[in-house]
């Protein structure tokens, strides 16, 4: 299971990721972030930036960026199945959610 933030650029993803980050801050505060080197300098939830949280945890960017990230996923854990979420209580809205579903379904899934 992975969260995905669809955006034209990685920079844009960090802006659009706020609803996703709200959820992940909740996870962090409830002990769901297993410590790793990526979290070495994260001492409290306020240190949890998108850049830190996203690496190896949140799929983000355009189709090419997502393919690259999922390629690592494929190489490392060889998943049998991938389940993604792209919407959170804070957004995006329905139209954007449908656009995201369509982009991922048409531009990413056939290339996996």
């Amino acid at each position, binding site marked *: *299971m*992975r*969260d995905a933030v669809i955006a034209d650029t990685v920079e844009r993803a960090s802006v659009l990721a706020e609803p996703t980050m709200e959820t*992940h801050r909740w*996870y*962090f505060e*409830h*002990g*769901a*972030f*297993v410590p*790793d080197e*990526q979290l070495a300098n994260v001492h409290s939830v306020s240190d949890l930036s998108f850049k830190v*949280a996203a*690496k*190896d*945890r949140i799929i983000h960017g355009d189709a090419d960026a997502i393919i690259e990230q*999922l390629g*690592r*996923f*494929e190489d*490392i*854990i060889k*998943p*049998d*199945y*991938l*389940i*993604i*979420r*792209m*919407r*959170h*209580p*804070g957004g995006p809205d*329905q139209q954007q*959610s*449908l656009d995201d*579903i*369509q982009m*991922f*379904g*048409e531009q*990413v*899934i*056939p290339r*996996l």
Partner: protein
Amino acid sequence: MIPVGYYPCTQDAPEGKNVDRMIDEIMAQAELCEQTNYDGFYFTEHHQQADGYLPNPVLMAGLVGARTTRINVGTCIALAPLYHPIRLAEDCAVIDQATKGRFRLALGIGYQDIDFEAFGVNPKQRARRSEEVIAVLRDAWAGKKVSALSSDYQFKDVSVTPTPFRKTRISGLPHGVNPVLNAPRVSPTAGLSTPFSQYLLLKHRLICTAKNVRRMAANLLFV
């Protein structure tokens, strides 16, 4: 190609005042997933949430199954300790029949106290209860009569009818693993915030212990 499933947000923040509209939106998302190469559409489960978090993923899977013809529908995950195993076995079998074998059940053991409180279940018993549910599902769907004479459930020689449309295959898939399941709390949704490297460790550990539910937390169990 790795099959890709989608799971929707089922929370109508902040106060759950437009749940009917949210369900309409979820149906539209599912129909689009069906048209755009997704393999499945799955629902999660929580209870007593102010934002109206949809509490019944099996029911929702049935609703989406009725609106679609190709994609699999199911749970990711349903909270095993909170179900009477006969009722769960029956409901899943009916949806699987209605959808001509497109139903997939994934189970987890739960982690939020408020979910257990809603059903008067002691969280410390969640591993044992999950094991019992899984044992009943496995036998009932194989057409065997099932019995349970525990402190949790008491029934004897029950036939679950109908059985599912498909011959079922029960297997463990990595989602999250915690070795101390009987502790009052484990890490929630380990799958979502777990980096790749640890996912691999979890996968290996899960394969080693797939028959031992006590060592699996919120793992996926697909049928």
